[in-house]
């Protein structure tokens, strides 16, 4: 467990908008966002769990700590990161927070940002700043730690992060039902409005797979109510989905992630649906996908593609872009962190 803060500070001081830094942990999400630019600042040496108190439901770790290491330590206490972030083989916790990606359980429990309790970061002037903390409720000052989640390293270098953890569910079971897309979307929304312990959903190829998590009695009664057949290798299925090893994700064609109101009717094209209809993975051409997403009141992200000329993230309205630029300038006035990774403007 090393503390590389001083080295990071030197690197930030030496950087400029002409020779910016590209913050990188395990490199598991090099593919994500706009094309990375700048000299690599490797965070992996700054690792280690700083504090973990199972009864406080909080873990604090340095940015370079492998996600797998944290998950292993939590598992010993029968706890976990409930937002199930993808590891893509070798993610670090800093990258998990910076990328803001959540897994199958997101619709049921919340996203990365919902579990971030505090961060310590170095801003673009190499000032060490702490926001939030290690407690469940904290409204002192603006909620900068949640702002950092998903900011793709453009606002600061995360040194340390505190996350809320949860106990693993007592019981879990997975069901499979044959169902066409329109009916599956309808059913997932109807069930989400009932007190059912659905913790994940996945529709693909006319098969709806559901995971139930909670008290034994709750899982058993929901199992009976929902019908379908039980899935034997459930853990493999859900981790395959989380890590995008599911066969849907194979291939080189551009992969889009659409974040939509859950009730959005079926879209055309080959797709995989998660989060009770709120997250849809799609293959297709930029113009049609962006139009479909905007039309439904959501947005589309070019998740994986060899060609990023269409822009990775949905463009923002001018008033919002102006606030983005000003926030970027507030934390990184010299523009040294991950330039262009989120939007080409900054």
């Amino acid at each position: 467990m090393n503390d590389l803060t001083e080295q990071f500070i030197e690197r930030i001081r030496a950087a400029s908008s002409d020779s910016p830094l590209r913050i990188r942990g395990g490199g598991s999400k090099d593919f994500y966002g706009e094309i990375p630019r700048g000299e690599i600042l490797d965070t992996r040496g700054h690792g280690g769990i700083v504090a973990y108190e199972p009864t406080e439901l909080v873990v604090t770790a340095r940015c370079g700590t492998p996600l797998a290491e944290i998950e292993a330590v939590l598992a010993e206490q029968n706890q976990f990161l409930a937002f199930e972030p993808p590891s893509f083989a070798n993610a670090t916790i800093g990258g998990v927070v910076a990328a803001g990606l959540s897994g199958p359980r997101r619709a049921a429990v919340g996203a990365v940002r919902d579990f971030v309790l505090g961060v310590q970061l170095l801003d673009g002037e190499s000032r060490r700043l702490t926001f939030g903390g290690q407690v469940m409720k904290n409204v002192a000052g603006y909620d900068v730690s949640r702002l950092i989640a998903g900011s793709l390293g453009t606002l600061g270098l995360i040194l340390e992060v505190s996350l809320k953890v949860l106990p693993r569910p007592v019981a879990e079971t997975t069901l499979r039902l044959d169902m066409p897309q329109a009916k599956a979307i309808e059913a997932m929304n109807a069930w989400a409005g009932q007190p059912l312990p659905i913790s994940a959903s996945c529709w693909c190829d006319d098969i709806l797979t559901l995971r139930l998590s909670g008290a034994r009695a709750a899982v058993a009664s929901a199992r009976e109510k929902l019908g379908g057949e039980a899935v034997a290798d459930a853990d493999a299925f859900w981790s395959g989905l989380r890590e995008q090893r599911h066969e849907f994700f194979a291939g080189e064609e551009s992969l889009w992630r659409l974040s939509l109101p859950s009730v959005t009717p079926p879209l055309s094209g080959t797709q995989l649906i998660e989060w009770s209809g709120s997250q849809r993975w799609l293959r297709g051409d930029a113009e049609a996908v962006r139009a479909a997403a905007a039309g439904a009141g959501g947005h589309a992200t070019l998740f994986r593609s060899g060609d990023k000329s269409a822009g990775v993230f949905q463009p923002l309205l001018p008033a919002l872009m102006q606030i983005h630029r000003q926030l970027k300038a507030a934390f990184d006035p010299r523009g040294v962190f991950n330039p262009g990774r989120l939007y080409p403007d900054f």
Partner: protein
Amino acid sequence: MNRAHIAEHDQDFSDIDRAGLLAELAGHLPPASLLSDTEDLKPYECDGLAAYRQLPLAVALAENEAQVVAVLKTCHRFGVPVVARGAGTGLSGGALPHGQGVLLSLAKMKRILHLDPVARVAVVEPGVRNIAISEAAAPYSLYYAPDPSSQLACTIGGNVAENAGGVHCLKYGLTVHNVLRVRGVTMAGEVVEFGNHALDAPGYDLLALMIGSEGLLAVVTEVTVKLVPKPETARVIMASFGDITNAGEAVAAVIAAGIIPAGLEMMDRATTAAVEPFVKAGYDLDAAAILLCESDGTPEEVEEEIGRMRAVLEQSGATGIRVSTDEAERYKFWAGRKAAFPAAGTLAPDYYCMDGTIPRKRLGEILRAIAGMEKKYGLRCINVFHAGDGNLHPLILYDANVPGETERTEEFGGEILELSVALGGTITGEHGVGHEKLKGMCVQFVADELAAFHRVKAAFDPAGLLNPGKAVPSLHRCAEFGRMHVHHGELKFPDIERF
């Protein structure tokens, strides 16, 4: 005034053209919606923290977003501060008027615009009361989860501003976890939307930044909240403990057993003694503390969880356990917790509610320290505690008419908050900083962090006119407070001139 200047010093608004401002506002609002006579302004002079009072220059009662835009644009042009207000139930003086500013009330914007039981969302105006959303959703067996104690009166706009919590937030989250989208107007009069009806939005998470921003970034004009299925049933365990530390350990033991109760609250003996005469809940008045531990879900699920919780509490040394058998009894057990604040009002002419949050394991420590402070300041304090979240509400009892008691109370409260920070916690869990806890902010944050907050504000409100002087103290003010906390051998505000 440039941004650096705003961060360092409080702004000066002494040269306001009041007549010109009122004339122009009158062109945008119906006569009954613009108040400027002292007697009309009086009801707005304070919020739920009545210790601080200030008359505004004028009160504008907006009925729609267009009026909000017009008021903000006008004030922006005149360089006049604006303080937004919902029901005025806030406990930190966040809606305390600015003496040279306009108080913008959103209380008339109280329509539920749209409720979609299939998509499980409600789109509401900012003046809609928290409880009204759950009432509207009840026919669909849905509800809005955050339930602050003031939910009968408090508005969703204020909940967004404060990131309001409640007694069920360990399991169901705070406002930030239950709001999908906020539409608002910046100080310059520009309409902006943060979030959407999907689960995330492109770009920075400005929705998270907006929630809990205490009316300093934008004025909320519309909110989309998530609705969640109402649990089929709920039951609560009432457990007695012979000593506070033991009760604190029992809370940790419940969590360690892998249980996240729907509610987990603690009251000390002084509190149960104060509330029992009113609610007749049958509290064990011999107990040093009682825990209320709720489980919700399907009947089978609740039965299973109550059994597990009961076993843990017994092992943790509970001296008595009762489990509610029906809804009437459950409400009765909760009644005392909900009546704690009014009951405090009968013990003394005034009470002052603190809101520090600490790691749960430090509970015994802070309660012992508070007992010591009671002697030191010669004032009584009763304690209610959102035990699951570590959020402590000590209620300091005092009499404002006794010379010196108000000052002693403030010092007492300040010491509790400083200790909360020293124990690894925060000065405010859910009530906000507002006007009240500016000093505490100087303890919790260093100058660089406070300066970063000021830059965040400037990204939304470069002129610094929305609720100025609240939530984040100027660096100069921190220096002036004279609370020179020496951390790591360094002075916290070394560059600021001192008085």
